Every structure is written in structure tokens, then in C-alpha cells.
């Protein structure tokens, strides 16, 4: 079977728009989480992107383009350039876009609602619609094949990547631009997440270390915004054009808990983990690193640990685990793609980013966590990236060198 390989990486993330610089910042344990919206009744923190739209758009092109689409266009374009795909190298109808987005253009909706004279910008709907990012990416890269949006909460972009890989493997497309974007850092959405009781509490001046995955004193996540896209093609296609192959997407698994809308489930997650291993033809002991979903909620982290323990069994102690959400926040629909890029970088650099801010591990989360300074991993051959969504859908991507 023809392998599906990664030939391009693009990020527009809280740690910048260079995957190498992003990975280096994570290795240094730099948190991008900061206080936001001091006017809100409760303290709020998030990891935002320092984005210069003028690098990607003229003022005219920005008409009706929400920030969530702007970030997507930029990240996908960076991935496209990283893959060194030249114009006309691939027939437009053989290029597909597979984009994850949990919510859509939050800023456009917020602006419409807050307009003080009752006048709503006429392009609010096309700016807000969740499939706008995929369409803008398609227009920018002239992708005329399947252009699809996956809205599966926190697993959106992980699933988008898995679906892209299937399309490449089945020969439906020659090149897939796959990833996701999310940009929800507006007061209305932050208030909604606070009401959900899943965001980390923090004392003044301690926003940066508020997210503590698997720690005894964890209290939830912080929202992050950003976009990440990867270019996928078959190994044959990549070889023919002399492309650099960053990694192979060797397997993927998806499942649904089908038990509860928001409460995670050990067996549901275990099914996705097993399926990823099976589809890659690997055993648990073959996998050296897990970039965990690790949202640092009380229940989420213990369920994830138990799911890993169920599948890994005796091999669990040899699996190094970290949740990088402690540093870049939770990108929700963009999380799976950003964390896929980080997992690919870990394989490439043979180094593991830390599970930051975990001074004392919760005994109920007994895992071989990557400690604060990160770790060398010269034997690393395979790594997984997990994404478990509200709605019960679980997605696991398995990359190999």
C-alpha cells in the first residue's frame, strides 16, 4: 500500500508562524497564555496570535473574511510553500482541502451583535460560516477537488487530517491540504467557556502557568487561537517530485463514545487508540511518544490516562507523554492540527516537548510524563497525537519517521 506522507507544515500559532521556532519555544517551556479582557467579571486568559493580516491580504481582499479564515489562509499558504509545490505541478481538481473548525467566525458574530446602531455588516454570514476557512484556502491555492469542513469540536482538525489521508491513500486526490483553524478569543465566547466550568482558575500574574495537565492541582484549560495545516501526498507522488518528507502518517483511528455529550469515556478513547495502532500495523511498544489531548480538566486527564493504560498495558511506562496545551492553550477545532505539527516536529528532531507546569503529578494520572526540560528521544520512531471531542468523538493520528 502506498504510504501517506507529510511534505509541508504551516502554523500561525500563539508561538509564531515558524514550526521550528514554535517547537523550540515549547522545548524551552515558554507559555503563550496571557490575561485577556480585564473588563470581564471573572479573570480570563488565552493564547492569542500576533497576526499581520497585511502579509496575506490586501485591504480589499479582507472584505467579509473573519480572522478564523485569515489564520487558515496564512497557515495553509505556509504549508504549501514548505512543501515547495510549484504552480501547475498538480492539476487543481486533484487538490483537496480538509479543514477543521469548531465554531466559525466568532469575531464576525460578536461584531454583529455588538453593533451599537443596530446595523449589521452585510457580510456577517459568509464571514461567520464554519466552512469559510476551507473555501478561502481553496481560493488561495486554487484547490478545485473536494473542499470539506469537519466540525467535530476539539477533534475537528485531527479528523480532517485523517480524512485527508484516506483521500490520498484512495487516490481521490494527489495533494491534500489538511488542518484547521479556530479564533474564538472574543468576550462573548470566553464568557460561554467560563460558564462551562472547564477553564483553568488562576491567581493574578499566574496566567502563564494556569494550565497544568495531569497535575494534582490542575483546574482546566485556557483557550488558544491559531491555525495549522499540513500537506499530504502519497509517498510515490512525493518521491516523483523530489519533495522532502517530514514524516509518514502511518495510521489513524476514530471512534465515538456514544455515551455522553461532554463526559469522556475510557473505552471510547481506547477504541480509537487501538484502531490507530492496528491501521499502522504497530504494537504499543513501538510508539515512543504521545502528544496527549491533556486538557487539564479534572475528569479528562484521568480518563485519558486510563484509556492509554488499557491499550498500552505493560508498555505504558515506556510511552513518554506530554500535553503541550499547557503552553499554547486549547485551539479547539485547530488543536488536532497544531498538535499534529508538534508531533511531526518531535519525530523529526528526536526531541520531546515538556508536559509543563506539573510540579506534582496526580496519582490517578500515573504516566511517564516528559518533565519540564523536555527530553531527547534518539530512538523515537513512532508517535501519536490524540484529540477527544465534546460530542464523544475521538481521533488519534499515528506518525512515523
Amino acid at each position: 500500500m502506498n504510504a501517506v506522507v507529510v511534505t509541508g507544515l504551516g502554523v500561525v500559532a500563539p508561538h509564531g508562524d515558524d514550526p521550528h521556532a514554535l517547537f523550540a519555544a515549547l522545548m524551552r517551556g515558554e507559555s503563550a497564555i496571557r490575561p485577556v479582557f480585564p473588563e470581564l467579571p471573572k479573570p480570563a486568559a488565552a493564547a492569542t496570535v500576533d497576526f499581520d493580516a497585511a502579509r496575506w491580504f490586501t485591504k480589499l481582499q479582507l472584505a467579509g473574511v473573519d480572522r478564523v479564515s485569515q489564520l487558515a489562509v496564512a497557515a495553509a499558504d505556509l504549508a504549501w510553500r514548505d512543501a515547495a509545490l510549484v504552480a501547475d505541478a498538480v492539476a487543481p481538481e486533484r487538490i483537496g482541502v480538509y479543514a477543521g473548525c469548531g465554531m466559525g467566525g466568532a469575531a464576525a458574530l460578536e461584531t454583529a451583535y455588538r453593533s451599537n446602531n443596530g446595523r449589521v455588516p452585510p457580510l456577517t454570514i459568509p464571514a461567520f460560516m464554519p466552512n469559510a476557512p476551507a473555501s478561502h484556502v481553496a481560493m488561495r491555492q486554487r484547490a478545485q477537488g473536494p473542499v470539506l469542513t469537519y466540525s467535530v469540536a476539539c477533534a475537528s482538525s485531527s479528523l480532517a487530517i485523517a480524512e485527508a489521508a484516506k483521500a490520498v491513500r484512495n487516490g481521490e486526490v494527489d495533494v491534500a491540504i489538511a488542518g484547521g483553524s479556530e479564533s474564538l478569543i472574543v468576550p462573548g465566547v470566553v464568557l460561554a467557556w467560563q460558564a462551562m466550568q472547564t477553564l483553568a482558575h488562576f491567581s493574578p500574574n499566574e496566567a502563564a502557568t494556569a494550565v497544568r495537565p495531569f497535575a494534582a492541582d490542575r483546574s482546566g484549560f485556557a483557550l488558544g487561537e491559531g491555525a495549522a495545516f499540513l500537506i499530504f501526498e502519497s509517498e510515490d507522488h512525493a518521491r516523483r517530485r523530489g519533495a522532502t518528507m517530514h514524516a509518514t502518517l502511518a495510521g489513524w483511528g476514530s471512534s465515538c463514545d456514544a455515551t455522553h455529550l461532554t463526559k469522556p469515556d475510557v473505552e471510547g478513547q481506547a477504541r480509537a487508540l487501538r484502531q490507530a495502532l492496528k491501521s499502522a500495523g504497530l504494537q504499543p511498544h513501538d510508539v515512543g511518544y504521545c502528544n496527549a489531548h491533556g486538557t487539564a480538566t479534572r475528569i479528562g486527564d484521568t480518563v485519558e490516562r486510563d484509556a492509554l493504560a488499557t491499550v498500552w498495558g505493560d508498555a505504558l511506562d515506556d510511552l513518554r507523554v506530554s500535553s503541550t496545551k499547557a503552553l499554547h492553550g486549547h485551539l479547539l477545532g485547530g488543536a488536532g492540527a497544531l498538535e499534529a505539527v508538534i508531533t511531526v516536529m518531535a519525530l523529526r528532531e528526536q526531541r520531546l516537548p515538556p508536559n509543563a507546569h506539573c510540579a506534582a503529578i496526580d496519582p490517578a494520572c500515573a504516566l511517564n510524563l516528559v518533565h519540564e526540560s523536555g527530553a531527547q528521544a534518539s530512538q523515537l520512531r513512532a508517535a501519536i497525537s490524540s484529540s477527544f471531542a465534546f460530542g464523544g468523538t475521538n481521533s488519534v493520528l499515528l506518525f512515523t519517521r
Partner: protein
Amino acid sequence: MSSLKELQDLIQEKYGIPSSELDPNASMREKGLDSLALAEFIFEIEDKFGIEVPDDNPNIDTLAELAALVDKVRAAKVA
């Protein structure tokens, strides 16, 4: 009174297109002001002049035509 100069200034301010680059009698669409951008631009015009441009003018394609329409609506408002 013609609104043309004010519209040209607004286009420059909002979209960064100087009046020298947009012939008032040329197609705005060909300059990238497609139907979506035009909808947003008319919204801005309405805000700026405190008017309501009727939305039954799908054939407007040049800035001169748009200026003539804005003139008409502003004149009606004064009258």
C-alpha cells in the same frame, strides 16, 4: 453636487486604492471590488452619509454609476 470625490476618498481609506488607479467609468469588479466587497462598501457609504441605498441596483458596475446613485439618494434626503 457629486459624491464621486468622497467615494474615491473612502475607497482609498478603506481599501487602499488611490483614485488614480480606479477610473470612475471602469468596472469596479475588474479592480477586485466584487459583489461582496461592493455590498460592504455600500454599507460604509450608508454609515458615512447617514443614508439608505436601495438594494435594487444590481447593475451598478462603475464608481461613476455608484456616485450618481448616492447623489440621488442624498438629494432625496435633503428634499
